[in-house]
């Protein structure tokens, strides 16, 4: 029983394969259809136009790259000069005053950030300093 079913299945499969092949064969077109598509009017003209536009695009792209490189060529010395000036300024700018050396003067109080004081503390101490001065 199982063998009969298997045989029938194989026959079905063969039939399906044959039908599949027939379907594929149906894709075969006659020479007239091929000729009609191949000799379609303006097809070659369309190809030429596309090729020319593509070539123009490639040339334009290349032109843009060249222009960009040209700009970069001019920009490089300028950027080098700016970098040199910037590094020179960094080099010659006076170093920040050490907060410990101005601890006793009024300026030391202004560097509240460095000593961990908030702006309110600084204001309070300034007001207190003024009051003390007036009292004196």
């Amino acid at each position: 029983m199982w063998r009969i079913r298997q045989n029938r299945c194989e026959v079905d499969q063969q039939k399906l394969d044959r039908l599949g092949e027939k379907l594929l064969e149906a894709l075969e077109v006659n020479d007239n259809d091929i000729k009609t598509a191949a000799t379609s009017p303006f097809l070659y003209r369309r190809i030429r136009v596309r090729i020319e536009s593509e070539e123009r695009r490639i040339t334009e792209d290349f032109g843009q790259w060249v222009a960009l490189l040209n700009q970069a060529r001019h920009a490089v010395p300028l950027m080098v000069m700016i970098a040199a000036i910037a590094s020179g300024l960094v080099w010659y700018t006076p170093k920040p005053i050490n907060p410990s050396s101005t601890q006793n003067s009024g300026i030391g109080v202004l560097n509240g950030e460095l000593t961990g004081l908030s702006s309110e503390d600084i204001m309070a101490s300034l007001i207190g300093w003024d009051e003390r001065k007036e009292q004196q």
Partner: protein
Amino acid sequence: MADKRKSDAGRSAQVPEPSDDELVTLARSGNEGAFSKLYDRHCKFVARLGYRFFMRREQVEEIIQESFIKAYFALGDYQGGNERSFVAWLGRISLHTCYDELRRQQRRSERSLGELTEDEAAYLHLQLRDSSTNGNIEGTAISRDLAHKLLSRLKPEDRLILTLLKLEDLSIAEIAGLTGWTEAKIKMRSHRAQHGLRKILKKFL
């Protein structure tokens, strides 16, 4: 006068046609006429290949157009050599163009996935029942529509391999050369394609 014309015609008949390789060399150096000649020679070949995968004339024209544009810009890569190498090279480009288009269609779901009409289903039944009928499926509009409708349900890779194996009668090694895929992949794909086609046919019978 007539004699002179005759001798001119005789001389022009003796001038051998330039080979594809010679035309490629000329086209590379910017000779538009040489490329035009290559187009005239091989346009039908590309059209025939296009019709294997696409039903509408506009689609086939699109394939011809794309293939020749790709070929033009790839002329520098063409190495030439034997007699049929330009055709093989162009065939490879056209095949890849068809494959790309099939994949694009699949992505856009443009395939005609509609159900079969009663006529088509009846036709399919008849063909299955009467397997002895040979040849009458060919050429008729209904069978071509049906074939495209059913085969468009296959994956593009499967369809490509089935077409090359069954219609073009190419060997696994030749398909590997054309597609750039490994032979193992092609064997596996062809097996899957056969199975897929059977499944599709069973579904509609």
